């Protein structure tokens, strides 16, 4: 053989397995959809023409108003709520500009947290004013879902870098957010779960590699009152509570019931979703297996 290096071509047989290729493909498609959706929203709103386009559909008069006060619209939109004329400006212009400076994973995660908190706050204000109807719930839930995805992705990037302190800091903030807005999340159909670690490490909570009990998990219901992941008994309880009950009466009792439901949901969801076997446990099992073989 003239060139002995040509024999390296046999290494071309090193390939992804079909399963690996399919899994990567599915993951890529999800990432593409998520990014494209976010980018399209940004593109529609990042130019003034895009904003005009949004307004011209059914908001002709509003368009004129926005034009007239265009310089102050962005400022005025800051406190807008779903259903308000300036709310699209708030989420598609103001917040996009704000998010554009989040150029590293930690900044992205923090911005996403802020957005999750904002959507929850908007739900709370609307509920207080008795304006939180199903359309607005859907809108807020979709917005929250997008930011949850962004947060999860940014957190995963930080995890991959092994920056444990940053993850802990983020999760600490997220726990506070979930605690502060648990009612709003419930109204929107977002099930937020905070895992808590135990000192002896004997837990079945989701764990990062080498980082126990620091992960917050979110589950989005297709609609506020439907989620096939919950047991039928939980669903029945939820439906009984929702149907015919004056929503503003006896809030404390309702909150207590929701907390109890959430605890039950956590027990149902976590064992099925997360393997409780940690890295340490695996090593121990391997050692035991070796012992058996020997």
């Amino acid at each position, binding site marked *: 053989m003239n*060139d*002995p*290096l*040509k*024999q*390296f*071509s*046999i*290494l*071309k*047989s*090193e*390939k*992804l*397995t079909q399963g*690996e*290729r399919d899994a*990567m*493909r599915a*993951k*890529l*498609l999800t*990432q*593409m959809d998520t*990014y*494209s959706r976010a*980018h*399209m929203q940004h593109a529609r709103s990042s130019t003034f023409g895009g904003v005009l386009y949004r307004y011209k559909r059914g908001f002709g008069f509003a368009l004129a108003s926005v034009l007239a006060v265009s310089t102050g619209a962005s400022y005025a939109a800051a406190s807008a709520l779903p259903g308000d004329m300036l709310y699209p400006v708030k989420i598609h212009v103001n917040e996009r500009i704000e998010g554009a400076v989040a150029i590293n994973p930690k900044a992205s995660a923090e911005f996403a947290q802020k957005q999750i908190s904002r959507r929850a706050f908007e739900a709370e204000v609307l509920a207080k004013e008795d304006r939180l109807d199903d359309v607005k719930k859907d809108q807020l839930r979709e917005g929250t879902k997008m930011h949850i995805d962004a947060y999860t992705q940014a957190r995963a990037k930080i995890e*991959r*870098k*092994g920056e444990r302190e940053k993850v802990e800091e983020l999760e600490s903030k997220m726990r506070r957010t979930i605690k502060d807005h648990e009612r709003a999340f419930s109204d929107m159909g977002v099930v937020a779960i905070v895992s808590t670690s135990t000192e002896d490490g004997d837990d079945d909570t989701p764990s990062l590699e080498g980082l126990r009990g620091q992960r917050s998990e979110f589950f989005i219901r297709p609609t506020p009152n439907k989620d096939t992941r919950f047991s039928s008994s939980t669903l029945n309880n939820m439906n009984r509570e929702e149907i015919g009950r004056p929503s503003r009466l006896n809030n404390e009792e309702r909150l207590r019931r929701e907390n109890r439901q959430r605890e039950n949901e956590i027990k149902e969801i976590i064992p099925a979703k997360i393997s409780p076997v940690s890295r340490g446990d695996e090593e121990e099992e391997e050692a035991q297996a070796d012992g058996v073989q020997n």
Partner: protein
Amino acid sequence: MADKDAFIAVYDTQADALFRFALFGVGDRELAKDLVSETFAKVWEYITKGNKTENMKALCYRTLRNLIVDHYRKHKSGSLDGLLEAGFDPIGEDGMDRVENEEDKAMLRRAIGTLPAAIREVVVLRYIEEYSPKEISELLHISQSLVSVRLFRATQLLKKTLHA
């Protein structure tokens, strides 16, 4: 707007080649998969923002190459030298080799592992992916003469290794 189907077609045709490039770059199958996955996500993000590229394949390779470099910068303990000391074997014991020339392949993998990173990537593209030096220069954004120099060095180094 970026063409999703066209991009997935790029994935379908290039995933294995990029995987090999990453595999021989980092010597770890799982890490190689993560890096390839991240490569495609980053490239999609890039083109969705409206950026144009004349050579999608080259963009993928350069992105992956940068990620491999980033990996070594962030994980100093996992240097290439460390890989060699540990016995570079990107496939591992659960390998998928079920062919008669398995021993030859193992020997070649070890030989590739002895090469410096810059030379190794050129060897992978030239002798495994079978690109011409000109194509390699386009893929890696380096001059064609540099590709030739690296291939020449690779030939010298590998002849020694393979005939040792």
